[in-house]
């Protein structure tokens, strides 16, 4: 029998709506799971159980009065510890912020709270959203439940682990170079980096303002759609927020892909470092899409290294600009990996940063042109190069040795989902990515949902 805490947000919402379960019951069951598992997997940094029960009680009252605020009213969520939460400690994974208590809520938590979400706690993230997995970090890194010796991926690592172990059904991550999609892929769950500007960044501690994206993670792409429907929206107080917005996605999801044209990015699939298994998982997924009615066309984009290096230069320079004073005054208090990665930004010249921004515009233009010229709705390529590395083998600059297959969507601002695609020979989750045109987040999530519905055997919660 399926445990109620391992259900999807969609299923939980249905049970709440029909009165088969109350939000308080659901929340208490999830608290029991967290109390049992978190001491081992370390997904949560801060627990807010008292608040959660209060919010669940209020959600049950609204439901009994026939005024549920939204489809996620009464659903428990957890936030990456980079999202400000009023009166609740928000550390951004750093010992320097050990006692940081925000005075305001982040825009994302404001919206979730208004929609009736219940906050279970704050999730582990690598220091300043970049540094994992550092052995000397102020807070221990979360463990990948599929193999605790291997990395979870970062920086929304706690979110990936909490979802994969059934500690929460929904989470919010953030993604600057892949920080939603990498832990989603390595932990075997779903995540979408939405179109740049679709979700307000207000109150999300920045890593790199022009590349940061706020987005949902869950165990299914349908659940991600339900969350994105709540958190998307123009924010006049946030300069990167887009006036252009999209219609709700979740109510329109279908289980076929008739008429959809998907471009298989062959040069990404054969890029340096991509394993045969990872490529095969992606090609198997394309076979499923063909069966679901989609047309597949092979396409080629600029070298993956071009996207990677432009993304790395911009991210590192902007990150140092944010943390410069901390780096000048407290360098020794910043964990080893974070210290070494962000410090590179101090050496990047303005001309190099501008060059990277120019490359960014060129690459965005070419990517859009390739999609238009080939009549494509989506791009498809491997989710990750291969299995996650062993934690003790990760060096400060491993990301300069191989291209970053999640970088193109950050650089271009295009929406991109990580979709689970079975397991490798080593027993690790595999994934592929779907990338859509700007503001076509609905097409991305629809295709991800259709694939997941056709391949239920790939869903697995680790006990």
């Amino acid at each position: 029998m399926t445990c109620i805490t391992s259900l999807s947000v969609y299923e939980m919402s249905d049970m709440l709506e029909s009165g088969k379960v109350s939000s308080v019951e659901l929340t208490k069951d999830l608290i029991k799971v967290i109390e049992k598992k978190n001491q081992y997997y370390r997904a949560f940094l801060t627990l807010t159980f008292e608040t959660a029960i209060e919010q669940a009680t209020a959600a049950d009252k609204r439901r009994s009065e026939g005024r549920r605020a939204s489809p996620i009213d009464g659903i428990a969520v957890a936030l990456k510890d980079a999202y400000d939460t009023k009166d609740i400690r928000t550390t951004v994974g750093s010992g320097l912020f050990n006692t940081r208590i925000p005075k305001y809520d982040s825009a994302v938590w404001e919206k979730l709270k208004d929609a009736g979400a219940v906050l279970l706690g704050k999730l582990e993230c690598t220091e300043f959203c970049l540094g994992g997995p550092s052995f000397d970090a102020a807070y221990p890194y979360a463990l990948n439940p599929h193999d605790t010796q291997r990395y979870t991926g970062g920086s929304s690592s706690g979110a990936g682990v909490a979802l994969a172990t059934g500690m929460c059904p929904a989470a919010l991550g953030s993604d600057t170079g892949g920080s939603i999609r990498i832990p989603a892929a390595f932990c075997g769950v779903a995540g979408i980096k939405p179109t740049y500007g679709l979700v307000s960044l207000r109150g999300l501690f920045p890593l790199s303002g022009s590349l940061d994206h706020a987005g949902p993670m869950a165990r299914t792409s349908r659940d991600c759609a339900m969350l994105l429907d709540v958190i998307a929206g123009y924010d006049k107080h946030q300069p990167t927020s887009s006036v252009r917005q999209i219609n709700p996605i979740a109510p329109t999801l279908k289980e076929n892909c008739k008429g959809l044209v998907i471009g298989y990015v062959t040069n990404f699939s054969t890029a340096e470092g991509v394993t045969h298994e990872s490529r095969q998982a992606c090609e198997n997924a394309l076979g499923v899409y063909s069966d679901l009615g989609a047309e597949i066309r092979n396409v080629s984009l600029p070298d993956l290294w071009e996207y990677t290096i432009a993304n790395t230069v911009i991210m590192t320079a902007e990150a140092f600009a944010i943390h410069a004073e901390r780096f000048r005054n407290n360098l020794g208090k910043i964990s080893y990996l974070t210290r070494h990665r962000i410090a590179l930004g101090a050496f990047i010249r303005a001309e190099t940063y501008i060059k990277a921004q120019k490359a960014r515009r060129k690459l965005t233009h070419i990517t859009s042109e390739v999609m238009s010229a080939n009549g494509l709705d989506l791009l498809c390529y491997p989710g990750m190069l291969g299995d996650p590395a062993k934690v003790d083998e990760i060096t400060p600059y491993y990301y300069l040795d191989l291209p970053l297959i999640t970088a193109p969507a950050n650089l271009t601002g295009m929406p991109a989902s990580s979709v689970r695609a079975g397991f490798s020979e080593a027993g690790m989750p595999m994934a592929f990515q779907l990338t859509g045109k700007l503001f076509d987040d609905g097409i991305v999530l629809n295709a991800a949902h259709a694939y997941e519905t056709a391949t239920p055997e790939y869903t697995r919660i680790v006990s």
Partner: protein
Amino acid sequence: MTKAKPKENRWRQAALYAGIDWNSLDGEKVAVALDRLEFLTEKLDVDAISQTEQASIFDAERFAK
């Protein structure tokens, strides 16, 4: 006393200019990474982009009342 390698010395000077304590970093690793970053950045092809193209991200429309 260990003598710094020439390339490392170049980055050490840059760190001094940027106000970063080089001794709190693993200097050799940082120097190798910076050399690599510099090499990779040179590969970025922006020649086709006009010299007169502005790189600004400032969006006047947002501020028009």
